């Protein structure tokens, strides 16, 4: 009898422990290791610099829950910069420890001799051709004008057109047989043109990044649709699921001084994608509190978050993907002509 009861109690115990385990869900805030925190050099606080928009979404979990390691909270500050400033964040701001920036910018800076470390890739492409009209694919854009911003956006569009043998040229007038690319300073400059086309029964197409895609389709041009998923096009051409569009970069001295912190931060940020999915209702308030202007006023649906392609590859894992990405963009961007993607840039 005693044996039966002992076995039953043991079984119940095991059942309880199994039922209480979290399975695949990552620990939300606490990263523990075998070594106690007191014996490892950790920063008191860390300062992120990043542009507004999807880069902020890449650190949603950190903004929402802070950085807690072994029960100790590490102070965190996030400063938003104009996208044009992010390239000089480490040189202009002495307290910049970490930055979220375009991968292209990070690689360029490292080639210019900046002491930086590529910590992880965090956004795997959020660009879409959105339009009002009949076009339904990249090839349908022939004979049409496509609005885009400068930089990586136009470079990627040119790559995908070229790789698909679709002729293009820069201009402002639609021309038979070519895709006319009209470059503007900001996506907000051409978003109203889609609305205008909708009102007049015309056509207009532009490249937008999520969540601006959602903003365009839900509040500005409600009849607009996604014509081209540039990530899927990239996958067809390279076999890579998306491209390492944005990344986390650490100041070299910071990475060398606090390697364990960086390692644990990367672990912590692995849960960011899941965090945005499970906290979709509170994202608007979170970003507003963090000072964002471009991420507020948007309802974060499952589709919106999925289209942001928030994921993570560590520096080591991202090396080949970054190499492919830069090589693909190189023909369209003179500034990337002599840029090298060295393994030493990536945190191992």
């Amino acid at each position, binding site marked *: 009898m005693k044996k039966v009861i002992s076995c039953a109690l043991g079984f119940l115990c095991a059942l309880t422990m199994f039922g209480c385990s979290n399975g695949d869900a990552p620990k939300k805030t606490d990263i523990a290791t075998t070594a106690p925190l007191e014996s490892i050099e950790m920063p008191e606080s860390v300062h992120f610099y990043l542009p507004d928009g999807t880069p902020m979404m890449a650190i949603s979990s950190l903004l929402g829950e802070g950085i807690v390691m072994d029960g100790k909270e590490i102070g965190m500050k996030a400063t938003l910069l104009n996208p*044009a400033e992010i390239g000089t964040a480490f*040189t202009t701001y002495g307290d910049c420890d970490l930055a979220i920036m375009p991968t292209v910018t990070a690689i360029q*800076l490292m080639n*210019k001799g*900046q002491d930086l470390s590529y910590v992880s890739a965090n956004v795997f492409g959020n660009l879409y051709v959105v339009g009002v009209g009949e076009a339904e694919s990249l090839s349908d854009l022939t004979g049409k004008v496509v609005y885009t911003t400068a930089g990586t956006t136009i470079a990627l569009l040119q790559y995908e057109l070229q790789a698909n043998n679709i002729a293009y040229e820069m201009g402002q007038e639609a021309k038979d047989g070519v895709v006319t690319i009209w470059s503007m*300073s900001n996506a907000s*400059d051409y978003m109203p043109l889609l609305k205008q086309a909708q009102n007049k029964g015309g056509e207009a197409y532009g490249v937008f990044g999520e969540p601006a895609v959602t903003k365009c389709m839900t509040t500005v041009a409600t009849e607009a649709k996604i014509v081209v998923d540039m990530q899927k096009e990239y996958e067809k051409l390279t076999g890579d699921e998306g491209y390492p569009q944005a990344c986390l970069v650490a100041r070299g001295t910071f990475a060398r001084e606090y390697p364990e912190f960086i390692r644990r931060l990367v672990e912590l940020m692995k849960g960011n994608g899941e965090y945005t999915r499970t906290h979709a209702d509170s994202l608007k308030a979170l970003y507003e509190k963090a000072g964002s202007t471009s991420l507020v006023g948007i309802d974060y649906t499952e589709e919106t978050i999925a289209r942001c392609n928030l994921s993570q590859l560590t520096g080591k894992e991202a090396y080949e993907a970054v190499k492919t990405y830069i090589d693909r963009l190189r023909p369209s961007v003179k500034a990337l002509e002599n840029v090298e993607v060295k393994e030493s840039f990536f945190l191992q």
Partner: protein
Amino acid sequence: MSGVKRVCSALIPVWVGLGLVLLWLVAALLIGEELILPTPMQTVEECFALFGQASFWAALGKTLLRGVLAFVCSLFLALLFALLSMIPTVGKIAGTVFSVLRSIPTMSVILLLLIWLRPSLAPAAVAAIVILPTLYSVFIGAMQGVDRGLIELCDVYKVPWKERIVRVWLPAMAQPLFEGTASGFSLNLKLIIAAEALAQTKESLGAMMKNAQIWLETGQLMAITLVAVVVGVLSETLIRFVGKQVKKWP
């Protein structure tokens, strides 16, 4: 003025230029970061790299063409309004309109025209609209500077209009006119380039500057800036030289 003094006086701009370059070099060395401020030597190297690109010459040519067209349009309109302003009522109306135009923030003009016009036209329109009140004031000031006594003398002796214009009006107006035109042209060029950068005008110095900034090519950005400065200074010098020659007309 003795020969030595004359030479020294002529060399002042050279010394000032060298002084500015030295200041630039010191600042660049103190900052020590090419991404933030390249040295003059690095910038000159970038200039030579630019000179080898056909796209640079196309951009320079088109920017200058826009600048000249915008300026010539402003010049003729300013002259027309200045002449019409000799009628007092017209003068008051024009004065008020130009006063309002002068007060509109330049950035508002640029941003509004970018909405209304194509990127290829907007920069020229911006420059024309912003420069027009300035040139109008220059013409009015020059016309008012003509000796009234000489004008009355011409009336008394019934001097033909052609003679009055060539021998009285033009010589009296030449100095302030060319001075105002010289600085007006430089400002015109600056506005064109600023508007081109915002509008991303195809084949333009402004768009080249914007792209250089996006791709962190600070050296190239400084090189294009240097070219724009040299073009501006040369234009001013040329216009002033022409003005001096016109003053020498009998």
